């Protein structure tokens, strides 16, 4: 069996319109970023809320948050995606259902499903990080805040969360990177993100080594850039004199 190496494949026409294979990768990367960023925003907001709830004295609220975490962490991501994409739409009210299934472009409905799925899935992980961060703070910090007359929301807003979020930047960085990697499951419901475009290129051009090498490179560079970005964020918010900060 002879393999025909051709690293110039990316600049060749795909045979569809005027597109070259590189265009596919760029479109794919665009979808990957669009999925990951929106899902991350959902995860960050919902996860922080849940993380705070888990640390509250109210049993019902913290119980709800633990239940959420248990559910979303113990069902495989792909199963969750299928549930959101295939099952949930059937349970929507009639009008929403026709909108989702008929009025939307297939790529849009797939996009919505995967963003919701990945957002809620990652929220469970963010929740655990936020909770860990809050619980890592000495009890005296909240005591001191209460002693000065802060209300419970103020204690979280001004004392606990600013510190907790700084502590958890490293684990949150890996969750952030995970969202990008996990967004590749979207390829299994037909969203043409990076992985799907890669597979398509491999099939169309028969240059599968080149196609997958390109995808790997893009993910690798993306990963490194995001890590640099988070490192910069960590530096920006680091507090002088605090353990783990780089400044003096």
């Amino acid at each position, binding site marked *: 069996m002879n393999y025909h190496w051709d690293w110039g494949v990316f600049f060749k026409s795909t045979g569809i319109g005027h597109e070259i294979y590189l265009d596919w990768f760029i479109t794919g990367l665009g979808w990957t970023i669009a999925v990951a960023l929106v899902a991350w925003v959902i995860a960050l907001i919902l996860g922080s809320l849940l993380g705070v709830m888990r640390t509250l004295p109210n049993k019902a609220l913290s119980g709800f948050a633990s239940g959420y975490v248990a559910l979303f962490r113990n069902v495989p991501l792909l199963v969750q995606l299928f549930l959101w994409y295939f099952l949930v739409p059937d349970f929507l009210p009639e009008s929403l259902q026709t909108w989702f299934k008929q009025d939307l472009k297939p790529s849009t409905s797939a996009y919505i499903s995967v963003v919701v799925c990945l957002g809620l899935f990652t929220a469970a992980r963010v929740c655990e990080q936020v909770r860990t961060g809050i619980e890592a703070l000495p009890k005296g910090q909240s005591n001191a805040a209460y002693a000065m007359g802060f209300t419970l929301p103020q204690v979280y807003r001004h004392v606990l969360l600013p510190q907790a979020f700084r502590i958890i930047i490293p684990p949150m960085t890996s969750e952030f990177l995970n969202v990008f990697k996990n967004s590749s499951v979207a390829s299994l419901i037909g969203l043409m993100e990076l*992985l799907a475009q890669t597979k398509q290129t491999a099939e169309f051009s028969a240059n599968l080594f080149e196609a997958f090498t390109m995808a790997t490179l893009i993910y690798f560079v993306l990963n490194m850039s995001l890590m640099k970005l988070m490192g910069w964020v960590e530096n920006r918010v680091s507090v002088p004199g605090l353990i783990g900060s780089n400044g003096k």
Partner: protein
Amino acid sequence: MMDFSQIVPALPALADGMVLTLKLLAMSVAGGVVLGTLLALARLSSLPLLSGLAKFYVNYFRSIPLLLVISWFYLVVPLIYTWLTGSFEPVGAFTSCLVAFVMFEAAYFSEIVRAGIQSIPKGQVNAGYALGMRYDQVMRLIVLPQAFRKMTPLLLQQSIILFQDTSLVYAVGLLDFLNAARSKGDIVGLPHEFLIFAGAVYFVISMGATQLVKRLQKRFAV
């Protein structure tokens, strides 16, 4: 309305899927831990080339999606097999998935093992050398047994994540538990019920395993 009654006759097919899932899981964990341990030792080695290579391997696999690895290996492993052996014997999806999981998970396991080895005080190593042991004896008889005891809970937790991740073999059409449930559901015409059932089974198993690991952790924490 939901109709779960059709799941009962489908149970043998689902059980076959689960057997494949668990087989893949067990072999991946075994292979991943072995390769991961070797990577961790290489990473901690004093030879810059060896530790650099190990570091690159780990960073490489940690920065790409598992699904990419599965898809890639599915296409590539048969090619490489042919190149290496010259034979055109087809390599099944199971084998390429297994190779993908072993290589991918090894990167994650190696980080756990490395942390475990580093948590053993230097004095233990010195004591081993002082007794006249060689490097491999110190590792095999002194450091690794202590390290594995410490990191067992983490390795198990990672295995539970892997248990869920095996469902990604759906991408290459391997009939694991999820795929078996999906195809049975489609045949019977009850895809929702079978999907929910599959989700519930995954939930019960990984939740149960997580609780078990927690209990184990408490016992180990003595």
